[in-house]
């Protein structure tokens, strides 16, 4: 996988996961051409966000979560594999969406962003979340 990789030292200590979530968002935000990032639960609840001041967080999170659920439920209805990542591009930028155990990762980027780099970074972030959250969720 080309492009920058997220450098995070996620511990499996559940008490520090709130900090880890913020780390993940901030690492995504630091990538080249990225304007902002957020993690939203499937119910639309914003877990962590670092977005430009011009973007209202809650409405975007609600739409991103609804979009993620739409992609998941459509795939289930059509008996197809669920989506891993999605990219939607417009004149003035691109929105990335990745499904993870605790919800969805969203990245807003400039139009000239390196798609492969962001996809790689999102895959890393999803893997980190999986590694840190799966044991605790299984315990319950």
């Amino acid at each position, binding site marked *: 996988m080309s492009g920058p990789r997220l450098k995070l030292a996620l511990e499996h200590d559940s008490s520090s996961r709130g900090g880890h979530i913020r780390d993940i968002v901030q690492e995504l935000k630091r990538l080249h051409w990225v304007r902002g990032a957020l993690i939203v639960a499937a*119910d639309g*609840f914003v877990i962590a966000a670092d977005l430009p001041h011009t973007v209202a967080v809650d409405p975007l999170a609600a739409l991103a979560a609804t*979009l993620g659920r739409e992609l998941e439920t459509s795939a289930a209805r059509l008996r197809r594999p669920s989506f891993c*990542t999605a*990219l939607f*591009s417009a004149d003035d930028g691109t929105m990335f969406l990745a499904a993870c155990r*605790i*919800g969805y990762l969203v990245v807003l980027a400039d139009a000239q962003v390196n798609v492969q780099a962001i996809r790689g970074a999102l895959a890393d972030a999803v893997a980190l979340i999986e590694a840190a959250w799966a044991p605790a969720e299984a315990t319950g």
Partner: protein
Amino acid sequence: MPLLRRLWTPRGGRAPLTVAEALRRAEQRRREGRYTEASLLVERGLTLDPGNITAHLLAAYLHTARRATAPAKEEFRWVLGRDPNHARALLGLARIALEEGDARTCHDLLRRALRFYPDFPEAAALMEAVHARETAPSTAPSARAPRVERLRLPGTGRALIVARADGGLLASQPVADDAKDVAEAQARALRLAATALTRAGLGPLHRAIVEDGRDAVFTRTDGELVVSLALPRATDPTQGLLDVNRLWSATLHELGLAATSPAAAPSATPADTSAADSTRRVS
């Protein structure tokens, strides 16, 4: 078992958890994506106070966050049974209705929420998406279907869908029983994505790539027409966008919407300059 013991007994184990404390801790864990632990705390709260609206609402959120729609609906309905104008419960049920393809119910629930709380930002954003669905052009390039056999798929191409933005299928290749359902599902997702892009100040949607464990579906749209091409997931994004751009131009030609013939060129040959330029922009 240690986890359960920790959640049901406060630190030090001296006094039992109060409802307020259980819910406060549940909310904290929810904020960290620790849904299982949060759910156990909510259960604890409901054991102590079965009629607690906040606990039922939190339970509904946690079910939704864990993608468990049926129990989430039950909890949202329980809340609305006690408070018919509870905006958060109305929004929660509206989102589930949208997931289930019931746009009318979703619209009604959102309207109720917005009647009492006109400045409810999440409800307003979803209402935009629902309105986009209702106002999607249904007549645009529908006069005739493109002669799909003239749209040559790239060698690795798995499926092609040509549809209107409202989900009406114009053509598919290969002809599949579920092509109509796929076109409708794509239309729903693209409308939500378009609304999200607009909310983020990025402008109208032009392209999409949706990857699952097997395929990458490359899509191009102008808000009226949708052309999507399924390729193997390992396809380079630039190549996939070039391929869908070529098919986009060929489709416009077949529909009589393009001035010049793109001649259904071979794979990786962009049919027009603007398409090639646009491809470079996103990759």
